[in-house]
């Protein structure tokens, strides 16, 4: 079977790519999460979003921007930075060229999620294309808006299986005047204790992460205020205030560790250290968010799934496990509902089959004729 390549450059092209074709389609961005979650099944066509790029509207005074979904976030951030603004989002793979749409579709997030949430909290509107080519808009260009269902949320974490994100509207924040990181070398359980102290203080950290042996805490704000608070923070945890270069290097290492992870897990923050500690491998722990990653041999992933399930948390692989090992931990409780939504939006099961493994089993094999 030869695979058709579809590479739209705008919304109209994206509409045609789905409306004028039949058969299964994998949606693909920069490919930085290709190995995450369930393995994509072979499809009749691949819809590549990497030419679906560019800023559509940017009015800095409104602090919102709309972009085509294939725009690499790193590129967008450079453009925003020229106006003293940013998308307050820092998932590790942004540096590797991840697209805005791909980051939304994989529900990725980084250390800043402690203060700003994930993209679900920063996306204020979207235009999506359904499997039948229907173009639908949700949300808008204003930061406060409750008109209609928030369909952008539905696509957060949808792995290309529910619709194509074609255009995305984002809420922006000012680049803070200053940023300081306090670091402390310590074991995970000690880090968890320190984290609780920091969260109980009035210091308002924006990131609080343990990265394989080092607790990293970032503060942001005005230059004077941040200097004062970072000294106070260093004293409180017994750590050191890092200079700009050392701070940047520490966060770069953090991102690299996350990039090498085998599994992503999430649970109540206070339980994360205990959970990750059980596996003893290289780990990164968001001690305020409850989200962490660990790299362990892929055939041991099943044990992580089981442990996380016992804690009531979530887990999903970030590298492809060998046959017979599940990519997703337990499926969500609302699986029947999710299947109903999938059926309404993609009744033939055209889009990105495989990414959710057997969640939508009843839809599998419906399509397939190229």
């Amino acid at each position, binding site marked *: 079977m030869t695979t058709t390549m579809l590479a739209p450059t705008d919304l109209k092209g994206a509409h045609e790519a789905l409306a004028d074709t039949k058969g299964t389609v994998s949606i693909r961005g920069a490919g930085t999460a290709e190995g995450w979650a369930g393995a994509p099944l072979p499809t009749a066509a691949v819809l590549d979003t990497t030419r679906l790029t560019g800023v559509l509207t940017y*009015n800095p*005074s*409104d*602090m919102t921007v709309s972009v085509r979904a294939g725009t690499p976030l790193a590129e967008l951030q450079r453009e925003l930075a020229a106006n*003293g603004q940013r998308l307050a989002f820092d998932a590790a793979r942004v540096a590797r060229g991840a697209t805005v749409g791909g980051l939304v579709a994989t*529900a990725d997030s980084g250390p800043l*999620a402690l203060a700003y*949430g*994930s993209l*679900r*909290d920063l996306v204020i509107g979207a235009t999506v294309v*359904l499997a039948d080519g229907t173009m*639908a808009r*949700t949300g*808008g*260009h*204003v930061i*406060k*808006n*409750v008109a*209609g*269902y*928030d*369909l952008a949320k*539905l696509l957060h*974490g*949808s792995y290309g299986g529910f619709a194509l994100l074609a255009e995305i509207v984002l809420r922006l924040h*000012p680049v*803070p*005047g200053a940023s300081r990181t306090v670091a402390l070398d310590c074991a995970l359980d000690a880090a968890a204790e320190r984290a609780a102290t920091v*969260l*109980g203080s*009035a210091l*308002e950290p924006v990131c609080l992460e343990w990265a394989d042996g080092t607790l990293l805490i970032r503060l942001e*704000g*005005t230059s004077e*205020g941040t200097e004062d*608070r970072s000294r106070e923070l260093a004293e409180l945890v017994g750590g050191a205030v890092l200079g700009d270069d050392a701070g940047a290097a520490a966060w770069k290492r953090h991102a690299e560790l996350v990039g090498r992870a085998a599994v992503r897990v*999430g*649970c*109540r923050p*206070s339980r994360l250290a205990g959970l990750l500690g059980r596996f003893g491998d290289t780990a990164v722990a968001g001690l305020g*968010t*409850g*989200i962490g990653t660990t790299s362990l041999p892929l055939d041991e992933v099943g044990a992580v799934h089981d442990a996380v399930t016992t804690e*009531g*948390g*979530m887990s999903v692989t970030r590298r492809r496990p060998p046959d017979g090992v599940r990519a997703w931990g337990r*499926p*969500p*409780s*609302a699986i*029947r509902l*999710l299947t*109903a*939504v999938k*059926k*309404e*939006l993609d009744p033939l099961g055209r889009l990105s089959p495989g990414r959710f493994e057997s*969640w939508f089993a009843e839809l599998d094999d419906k399509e397939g004729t190229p």
Partner: protein
Amino acid sequence: MLNAAVRDALASAVGPRNVLSDPVQLRSYECDGLTGFRQVPSLVLLPLDTESVAAAVRVCHEHEIPFVARGAGTGLSGGAMPVADGIVISLQRLRQVLEVDPVDRRAVLQPGVTNLDITRAAAPHGLYYAPDPSSQQVCTIGGNVAENSGGAHCLKYGFTTNHVLSMRVVLPDGEVVTLGGDTGEQLGPDLRGVFIGSEGTLGIVCEITVRLLRVPQTVRTLLADFPSVRAAGEVVSDLVAAGIVPAAVEMMDNLAIQAAEKAVGAGYTLDTPAALVVELDGPASECGSQFEQVKQICDRHGCTRLHIAGDTGERAKIWMGRKAAFAAVGRISPDYIVQDGVVPRTRLAEVLGRIEDMGTAAGLRVANVFHAGDGNLHPLVLFDEDAGELERAEELSKDIAELCVELGGSLSGEHGIGTDKACSMPRMFGVDDLATMDRVRSAFDARKLCNPGKLLPTPRLCGERPGRYRPHPLEEAGVIERL
């Protein structure tokens, strides 16, 4: 109509003592805060636990009885208005705070807990629940979830959707599921995010886990007068441009100030054309320097009086004036309608000017008191029903909401679409947008029993229904066909 068998089934689902059927009692459920729309329900259920809610919904599903969930009934878009021949499921008796976890900073709540009671329960731990609708003393967290409610402090802290981690939801067929999880990241598509703000049309939320925040170290509040609404609007733009994210920026125009002063005497200047309330919060070292910047920006735009709250008492007084403004409008006008449109913040001055012109043209006064920081207007159209002004007021009110859409904004920032603005939805969304929303609704509620007729336009309300083709009853009966 409900036959005796269905009544019995519903009574046994929730317990006979938790059913209201007396016409006088039913009448108190006929509308929400939007009192112009009324419909007496056939029955009101007051279940005592999630299982009874699910059991009642299963009966409705089986017998195709429409049902409407109801919290405190403070909604302003007719969302909790009953539907004809349907029942109301009130969550008012489910009002327990099930858990406050100071370590992981979260609380687990039943849906009837009031917004303010969450913060009351969290306060002993130095924590609070951030979204703060002005109605927080009475409105319920279930209603807040349904409307994705906001409040003055949502500019910095976000709306209900940014603070709910997970929910136990009774789906429209009676299945009980969990949406969301222990962290912001969840498994697969974010159904929690779709449910929040769905205005009671996708199910009934019976248990909610929310994030709690640490009470900020310092709060600084100022009240500034300006020679014009435009000048005050420019201050808002400049604050944003300066990279300051205040906890709240609220604006009142002269009519709103007069009304509030008459009601509570909070010390606002009676003859100022406009006033801003600006509040900063956070670590003391951060607030101090930013507060200076705010004062400078106010001065640059011709601020005529700057009052800085010296203590918590003075701050509470400033907020009392702001929060009283809504209800206080009743003192300067026999009747009023509240609108809730949003515009991009850069268009605030423009939209206020146009609203003023539209008011003049309609011969009606419009008072403005609103969340300026996020461009969420609350124009209050003042009128006298006895003088036959209702229709004109409704027209003006609708035109204002639609003007917001025209300027790149939204029909509603926090009150929801409900019954009130459903017919304006086609102004904001195209046929395919609405049809897609309807497909999602069908996935949740195939039988269309859960708060039907709200949020999306319907033929009964607005004439032609946009969306996928639906056979006319006469077509189904084989009497007519469309070719």
